């Protein structure tokens, strides 16, 4: 396992939305998917995953439905709603703006001032 980074506050929701947007997932699947798509760089505290999922469901950003896993176990699958998709787009754009602003700030060289 490589080096992992702690999550910035507020980013967990965004990551969950992203994970679910790729394919309907159960809770554990969300955890694995975030690790996978972040190249194992992000460590999700398992205890805070479910309250986040419930909160997003309460806000109508994702919906849950019971289904079957590949090895025939009952699990709750989360899917993105259209409101969730909109939110993900907004958050992604916001994040990108923030990230590029911070990156450009950090890359500033003395002669550029």
């Amino acid at each position, binding site marked *: 396992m490589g080096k992992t980074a702690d999550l910035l506050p507020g980013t967990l929701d965004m990551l969950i939305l992203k994970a679910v947007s790729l394919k309907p997932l159960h*809770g554990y699947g969300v955890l694995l998917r975030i690790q996978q798509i972040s190249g194992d760089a992000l460590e999700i505290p398992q*205890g805070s995953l479910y*309250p*986040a999922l419930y909160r997003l469901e*309460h806000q109508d950003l994702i919906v849950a439905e019971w289904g079957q896993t590949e090895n025939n176990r009952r699990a*709750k699958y989360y899917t993105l709603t259209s409101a969730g998709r909109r939110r993900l787009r907004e958050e992604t754009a916001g994040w990108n703006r923030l990230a590029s602003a911070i990156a450009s700030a950090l890359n500033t060289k003395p002669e550029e001032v």
Partner: protein
Amino acid sequence: MFKRIRRWFRILTFRREFEDGMSEELRFHMEQFADDLVSRGVAPEEAARLARIEFGSLQNVKSDCREARGLHLLDELLRESRYATRLLRKTPGFTATALLTLAICLGANLTIFAVMDSILLRPLPFPEASRLVTMFNTYPKAGVDRDGSSITNYYERRGRIPAFASLSLYNFGTGIIGETGSTERAQITRVSPEFFSTLGVGPLFGRTFTEAETAHETDNVAILTDVYWRQRFNADPHVIGRQIRVDGVPKTIIGVLPPNFRFLSSESRLYLPFASRPQDRAPSERHSGGNAKQLIARLQPGATLAQAQSQIDAQNATLEVDDPQAKMMADAGFRSLVIPLHADHVASVRPTLLLMQAGALALLLIGAINLVNLLLIRATGRSKEMAVRQALGANRRHVVSEVMVEITLLTLAGGLLGLGLGAGGIHLLTRLGVDRLPLGATIAFDARLAIVALIAAVLIGIMLAVPIAWFNLRDHLTNRLQAESRGGTSGRSAQRLRHAFIVGQIALALALLTGAGLLGLSLERAAAVSPGFRPEHVLTGRISFPWKSYPNPASRLQFVERLTKEIGQLPGVLASGVVDNVPLSGKSGKSAATVKGHVLRPGESPRGHYSYAVGGDYFSALGFSLQSGRFLTPADSRRTQRVCVVDEDFARYYWPNSSAVGQRLFEGGEARADAEAFTVVGVVGAVKQAGLTDDAAQGAIYYPYIFRTGDDIFITARTSLSPESMTSMLQKTVRQIDPELPVSDLRSMETRIADSLMARRSPALLAGIFSAIALLLTAIGTYGVLSYAVTERRREIGVRMALGARPEQIRNQFFSLALRLLAAGTTLGILGGLLAGRAMRAVLYHVPPVDPAILAGAAAIIGVVSLIACLVPSHRAARISPMEALASQ
């Protein structure tokens, strides 16, 4: 938003499902994680352990999940409710007192509110009912405040008043409906064609009346109400085109009204077209309203009442130009007033209803004060517990929400009981005649009221909880832990608050008692008024002539003569007569008369007088007093010479210095040929027509029956037995003469008088009930607070007695406290009583709004009751044994 609330409710309903699902989901997660670890080579038991560690506290995660779903608030509420229920159950005496107080106070308010709501608040059952108006002609200077509208008014205004979208004429009447052998007298409303479109409610099926159906030759059509359609036609869907006989004339049914159709307080079974002849619509008939015919109109969207009024005024002014009567009408102060339909219909009961609601609210306030006091005492008892809990870290929000939950729970339960009591209260009010008020038949105890009750209960709960919560949080903890400890007394502010509440309570009860006293005295004074005749042993009943079998005055006179003769011969009947309007019948229309030789003084306007047609021995039957000349006799209807009798008010007005007998007068507003003059042959005592409390000396003229043969007569009989025992005999006699003529409204004259006082008796009775409850609550409140003060100061008293204080000193100390509170409360209460009297001025009769005797009496009653309530605790204080008091606690 709405979706979210719905889902929240779904989760509440399927709470179990939610919890199970959450557990399963979390278990699944941990098992998957453990499986993954196992597949990476970790031993199964170790993997399960690691999974648990990695996940953290399952309980915390679950609780976070619930919170994310908004469920934690509910959980807290449930927990606090359970706690509160336990607390309340531990003090059954307090809980029962509180619940009973709430139930009675809320029940009384709900009962009155149900009436207010149905009569004053709910709009009439028509679309955009606020745009419906009525109008009537008024001649205030002639003593005629209200005279309906005329057919001419209708035809002149229709389509010519821009502020009206539509205008319609109607009148209420009765008719004999059905085939020979199965007839019944039923109420009928005659309406102009645009009546239903003005109201905005059309027939369920069929059509409404057309313009062609407003002539007597072509008006043989009828519209049924839903009730009548179901009763008589068994809800036959093919009823259109069938025939129904009204007063013997067949009418074709053209429509059926929807089930909820109800025009004002009408009980009409049938609607018929308002037919009239061209001469009825002539300008000369412009002022012949006579209160029977009424106009309603719907305002144009956006048009105001003021616009409509000014357009009517302008039209009246234009029409007056070539009206020969214009001068006289102007002298009489003629105007046509436009008034909102709903407000006009309920105007007579509005002040009384508002007063009753104010009384009920005062009662609620008294009850609420009692509760606050009880709750404060309770909170004082628990204040150390609260302080300790706060010291141990209970947060403020928690302390507040606990109080809120407990008290709201209490008031909600009280509200539910109050709902039950209110439903019973409506029954009581029905016995008091509330269903006979305008729109009274629509009074219903329904879901809307239940919701109002519950909302009120919650609001009261919150309002009661605020002072208690404040009390619980108020002081610094250290203060609290020290005060009220062994040997101390309660905090000053708590004590002062309780005393202020008692003072307020005494004041409110006193104001309420004063109001009840004023109403009671008004009732007594009204009941003591002499009606002007001897009402004992007089039976009265109403007969309406169907036009078909009694088309002319001669046929009616013949019937009247035969009827009075046959009734007069019945055993037990001393005298019998008929009149076209019996005193206190509820009808009080006035008409004009012209006295020969009377010249209007400057500023004097022509007067409206009560005008009667009498047959048989009417004056003897009712027991009139004869002041000079003679009564009318049956023979006067058959004589060529026209005679009449006037009452003392009339005689005094026109001939203050000479005898009325032998003077002459004309019916109507102008002098005519001498041959049409009536010679006054007698003067009788004045009687009350509109009501016992109507003090206007309007004057009355009695004509022989033949000269005014209207559609209605009242039969009157003076009996030697109780009048009620004669009813069936009277009905039988009428049926023998004409089997198709029913007698309605059979009542003894004394019953009529009693019924006419209903509008005073019922409010006075209700106010009396409210005051009695208020007194009881005040007594309980005073007793409670004083006993508490004694209990609280047991140790202090014990110490003082041990040091030599005498029992009288202790007793007097508490007694003087009670007296001080009483004095303050009485002073405030007298102020409140003065205010109450002023607010009630409109409903008082011959009682000044400020009546010192009533104020003093009310104050005395309150004083005695609250002093009695103080006696027991004061005596108990004096009997405290120092040994016990010091040893206790």
